[in-house]
């Protein structure tokens, strides 16, 4: 029994969520009295690979292969499954990112492994039994899922686990998997990045606005507040349905579920579908002119007031605080 963690390659480097999954996998390996191996696919700088040691990986399998420079879920799944067999891993940890969602089921199917995706904390371990707490009903509930198979795959939500530095060093080992040609049917034509800022699923702070903003032309003050906080911007469903903001910013039951440290909701009434998507936020601030808005019932801090007056003042206060 050992643990394998897949460290997702983001355009040649690692994002914070990679160090989260490594920290999580290390904590799991410690509970199981075993070691943690990481697998990196695509071309990643050696110093970035070595940095995984500082979060608990004792070994990093490095797959640098021109065919695998870009993410192709079929091929990457074959590599991870082969690596799991090579290191004798029974437990595989993957980030529940957009790419992870296309990858984890394929890895699990290859290994006949039970899969728990959307994990929000460390599992309960009782002998061979591993029970994972995961989100269900779009944030309205959690499901405690017992993985009963010999091999197991866990996909961890972003921002669900804190970074834990161990001060360790990792040995980097080149790994040369054999991948079926059939796995390369998908070709990547283009990658379009619409933002160079922090992205919504990974964001530690999210500034979100709703119909109370009255129109897309008023989003400037939302972006200024987000910039002052280093936050990502988001919106409610009516706003993306109206085309004021892109669908990728829609937070809620039929959009993205987020789990930031701080969620600031401005001019959003708080329909049950929206609240489902934000329930995992650690702290919620609600700014709304209607004191009866349902969002206040789940808020930690509330301001009753006109967004057009409060938001610019809040941005100024944040800037003053940050100096």
């Amino acid at each position, binding site marked *: 029994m050992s643990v394998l963690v897949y460290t997702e390659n983001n355009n040649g480097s690692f994002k914070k969520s990679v160090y989260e999954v490594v920290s999580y996998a290390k904590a799991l390996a410690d509970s199981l009295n075993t070691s943690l191996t990481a697998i990196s696919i695509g071309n990643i700088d050696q110093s970035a690979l070595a940095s995984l040691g500082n979060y608990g990986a004792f070994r990093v399998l490095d797959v640098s292969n021109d065919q695998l420079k870009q993410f192709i*879920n*079929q091929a990457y799944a074959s590599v991870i499954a082969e690596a799991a067999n090579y290191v004798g891993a029974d437990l595989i940890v993957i980030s529940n990112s957009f790419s992870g*969602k296309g990858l984890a089921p394929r890895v699990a199917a290859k290994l006949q492994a039970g899969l728990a*995706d959307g994990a929000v904390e460390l599992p309960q371990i009782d002998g061979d039994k591993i029970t994972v707490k995961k989100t269900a009903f779009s944030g309205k509930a959690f499901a405690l899922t017992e993985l009963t198979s010999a091999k197991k795959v866990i996909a961890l939500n972003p921002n669900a686990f804190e970074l834990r530095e161990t001060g360790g060093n990792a040995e980097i080992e080149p790994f040369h998997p054999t991948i079926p040609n059939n796995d390369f049917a998908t070709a990547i034509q283009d990658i379009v990045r619409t933002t160079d800022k922090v992205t919504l699923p990974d964001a530690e702070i999210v500034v979100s606005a709703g119909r109370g903003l009255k129109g897309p032309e008023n989003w400037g003050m939302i972006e200024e507040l987000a910039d002052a906080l280093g936050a990502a911007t988001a919106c409610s469903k009516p706003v993306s349905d109206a085309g004021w903001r892109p669908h990728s910013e829609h937070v809620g039951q039929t959009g993205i579920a987020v789990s930031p440290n701080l969620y600031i909701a401005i001019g959003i009434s708080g329909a049950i579908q929206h609240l489902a998507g934000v329930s995992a936020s650690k702290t919620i601030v609600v700014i709304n002119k209607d004191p009866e808005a349902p969002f206040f019932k789940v808020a930690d801090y509330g301001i009753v007031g006109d967004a057009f007056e409060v938001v610019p003042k809040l941005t100024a206060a944040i800037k003053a605080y940050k100096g």
Partner: protein
Amino acid sequence: MNILVCISNVPDTTSKITFTSDHTSLNTSGIQFIVNPYDEIALSKAIGLAEGGNGTVTVINIGETGTEATIRKALATGADQAVRVNAVPRDAWFVAHQIANYAKDKGFDLILTGRESIDYNGAQVAAFVGELLGIPSVSTAKKIDIDGNAATVEREIEGGKEVLSIPLPLVAGTAEGVAEPRIPNMRGIMSARTKPLDVIEPVEVPVLSKVVRYETPEPRGAVTWVDAGEVEKLVDLLHNKAKVI
């Protein structure tokens, strides 16, 4: 084009979710079930692609007799035929096996699912089916264009999108943007009654996981009010008390 659309029957998005007293299953009393909203997008896309005699849309659902209302709605929306696998949809692994088993010898060019179901939220079925059939899969598709024997698919990534070129057959999990949801019209509703709905028995699938308990989130404490004229106080609370900035 021969298209298979996988639909699940889920609680309406406005539902308050509660569980039975032993916390092991959903309390379904008073809950209205609907076609999973992402599956409606998949269905609408399939109908659009098949329109004008360009193909056939088959809908598959894994469920007991109670889900037939949902299946008839899909037929009313414009699917040509439906299959119900007569079983409780235990988990995504089980559901994917039923879909793959049905699809394996039918020559589907395209298999569409919603990107996730809004009940158990495994965004797993599309990739499982792809793996079980040994064909490509895309789990969060924002746009799908078919050109001959290949598809151009835009996939959501954090902070952008990837444009993929994939030969058919393929499995895609659809998200917003793929198609505008269609609403059944009266003619559709009338014709749905006579469209074929086959019922088949499930194949056996090994159990790899099981839900042992459901929990609902801890209620939050009471809101701390801050006066609209004292935003500095909010900054102070967020820094010193909540410690989030």
